[in-house]
């Protein structure tokens, strides 16, 4: 750097007297500037020196850093190499582990199984606690993934349970039916069955009704609209504390159903609610309605009975029922009426039923008619017994001597088809040649021929004996009706009527067509001439 020359300095020998004061003034004025310039010059020198020094330091540090970097690079390279080595080792180990896993499983499985078994045995509750939460989920997953397997696995269990339950029910049902059938065949049961039949109920229906007996658990009488409980009876259950709440809720449900499904028809009401084997039968009146909680099959006419009850109640108490505002003092005691309704509707089980006047009258008429029929039956029987010997007289001669053979009874006697006055003696069942002479005048000549049982197939010779070598007697013409009297081998003894009366003779069986099977008693090894 070029040094700054002070302006106040003048070269030697060039000063003069005029310039001296100027020079002095200039020197005085610029002395500060000169000093400052000199100071700056020093500072610049110092800075240059400092910069030089810093530059050296930086260079040195850079060298050091470069050396450090080299060292680190070296280390990184070494780390990379080590990492590669480790990866290789891990890969080797992994492959080795993979190769050994099957063997490992085989070795661990029995131990694991044993361990689980022992844990279950020793700490059953803990295991149940541990496994419980996941059991449901596990079953769900299993059902989702393999429904068929689960069904097959569970079928024996569930099937057996269902079968057992059904079996129990069936047995119980059967016992019930048996008991009812036994009861049904008692005198009272027979009467009941007959009565049911008259009303169009089959015995099966009756048995079913008896097997599923009807019972009333509770009866509520509830005010319309407000749902306030007017009366409550619980013949088939214990006292329910919340009957007033139930009546309110039932009313709300009815209102809800009517408003939701009535479609504007305010006359329609909910008339039945079924829950399991219980039913709530509702019979509605103008001011109040009756809700009957029941089980089993309701007896015939039950609804009509409820309707009648509610109607009667309204006839008597409609104003009170409608105006009831929760004050029990204005309400009549309806409890006995409801109790009576229960007794009447559940039949004779709860007490004797009072018969109506019409029922009583029907019973009296029925009994009278029965007695009359029985009397007529007895008379008819006696009459028949008395007439029997006359209508069917004994084949022995002794029977013929009875006073019944009076002329007045002649007609009856002649009506018997097989009675003949001939004296033919045959082993047949035709009656009989043994009539005594006393009988003879009583019979009229009107003879009813015996219906034939065979006829001749062609014109054939008859013989006195069942033998072809015996001489012919007479010809039996074709289509002649005959009665077979006896059978011997291939021969038949027949009887027929010709123009001059009765004829008998033996003919070969092949010439006779038998209309009816021949009675075995006619077939004998011997013949009767």
């Amino acid at each position, binding site marked *: 750097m070029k040094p700054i020359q002070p302006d106040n300095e003048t070269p030697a020998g060039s000063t003069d007297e005029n310039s001296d004061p100027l020079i002095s003034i200039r020197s005085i004025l610029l002395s500060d500037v000169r000093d400052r310039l000199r100071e700056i010059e020093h500072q610049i020198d110092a800075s240059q020196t400092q910069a030089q020094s810093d530059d050296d330091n930086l260079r040195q540090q850079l060298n050091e850093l470069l050396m450090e970097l080299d060292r680190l690079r070296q280390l990184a390279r070494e780390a990379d190499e080590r990492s590669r080595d480790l990866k290789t080792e891990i890969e080797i180990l992994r492959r080795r582990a993979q190769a050994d896993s099957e063997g490992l499983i085989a070795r661990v499985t029995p131990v694991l199984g044993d361990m689980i078994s022992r844990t279950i045995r020793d700490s059953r509750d803990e295991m149940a606690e541990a496994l419980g939460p996941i059991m449901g989920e596990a079953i769900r997953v299993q059902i989702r993934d393999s429904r068929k397997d689960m069904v097959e696995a569970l079928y024996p269990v569930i099937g057996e349970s269902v079968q057992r339950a059904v079996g129990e029910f069936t047995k119980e049902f059967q016992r019930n039916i048996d008991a009812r059938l036994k009861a049904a065949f008692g005198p009272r049961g027979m009467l009941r069955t007959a009565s049911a039949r008259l009303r169009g109920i089959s015995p099966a229906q009756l048995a079913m009704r008896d097997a599923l007996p009807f019972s009333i658990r509770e009866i509520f009488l509830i005010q319309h609209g407000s749902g306030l409980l007017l009366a409550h009876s619980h013949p088939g259950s214990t006292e329910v504390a919340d009957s007033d709440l139930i009546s309110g809720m039932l009313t709300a449900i009815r209102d*809800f159903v009517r408003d939701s499904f009535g479609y504007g028809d305010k006359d329609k009401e909910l008339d039945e609610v079924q829950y399991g084997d219980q039913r709530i039968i509702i019979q509605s009146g103008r001011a109040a309605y009756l809700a009957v909680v029941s089980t089993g099959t309701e007896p015939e006419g039950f609804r009509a009975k409820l309707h009648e009850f509610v109607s009667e109640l309204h006839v008597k108490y409609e104003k009170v029922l409608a105006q009831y505002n929760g004050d029990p003092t204005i309400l009549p005691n309806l409890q006995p009426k409801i109790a009576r309704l229960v007794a009447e509707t559940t039949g004779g089980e709860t007490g004797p039923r009072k018969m109506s006047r019409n029922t009583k009258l029907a019973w009296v008429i029925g009994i009278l008619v029965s007695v009359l029929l029985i009397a007529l039956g007895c008379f008819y029987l006696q009459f028949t017994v008395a007439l029997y010997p006359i209508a069917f007289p004994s084949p022995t001669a002794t029977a013929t001597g009875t006073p019944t053979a009076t002329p007045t009874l002649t007609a009856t006697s002649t009506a018997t088809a097989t009675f003949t006055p001939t004296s033919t003696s045959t082993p047949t069942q035709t009656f009989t040649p043994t009539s005594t002479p006393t009988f003879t005048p009583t019979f009229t000549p009107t003879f009813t021929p015996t219906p034939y049982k065979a006829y001749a197939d062609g014109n054939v010779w008859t013989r006195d004996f069942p033998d072809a070598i015996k001489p012919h007697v007479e010809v039996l013409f074709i289509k002649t009706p005959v009665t077979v009297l006896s059978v011997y081998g291939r021969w038949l003894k027949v009887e027929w009527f010709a123009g001059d009366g009765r004829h008998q003779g033996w003919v070969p069986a092949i010439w006779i067509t038998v209309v009816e099977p021949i009675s075995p008693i006619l077939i004998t090894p011997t013949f009767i001439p």
Partner: protein
Amino acid sequence: MNNTIVQKKICLLGDFGVGKTSLVRRFVEDRFEDKYLTTIGVKISRKTIERPYGSMNMLIWDLAGSTGFDSFTNPSYMQGTAGAAIVCDITRRETLTIVAEYARQARIMNPKIHLVFVCNKADLAGTRVISDPEIASVSSTFGDGTFFLTSARTGERVEDVFFTLAEKIDARP
């Protein structure tokens, strides 16, 4: 002492979420639940209270809340009601504006019905948006201008509501 037991049907009316069910729960079971469950249809509870003549079985019909009188609660449920509490929420102004309509509907169903006006959620004073003069003004449009500032959470004045109803009913059944 006389042992007459009378039954009275009481209804609670009001918009959704004003706290009708909570009031009933506080009165009947003396407890409060924070969670809100909408009442569907109706829920009936019973509370027996001592009266000079014996006791009164209050059958409290907690009707499902509605929004505005267009969808007023099923009128069938109001039949035979002796008294009703009309409830509003002091933190929701819209629940106040509709109470007069509830009162009108209740009187259509039963002209003799006794009404009390209940402003619930008094414990939420910080978020209150309705002042006492406003409430009194609305109350006077359908009643005598009185009201109950209640809190089902704390139980404040809840019993007063039902006992006042019982007294009104006993005075003129």
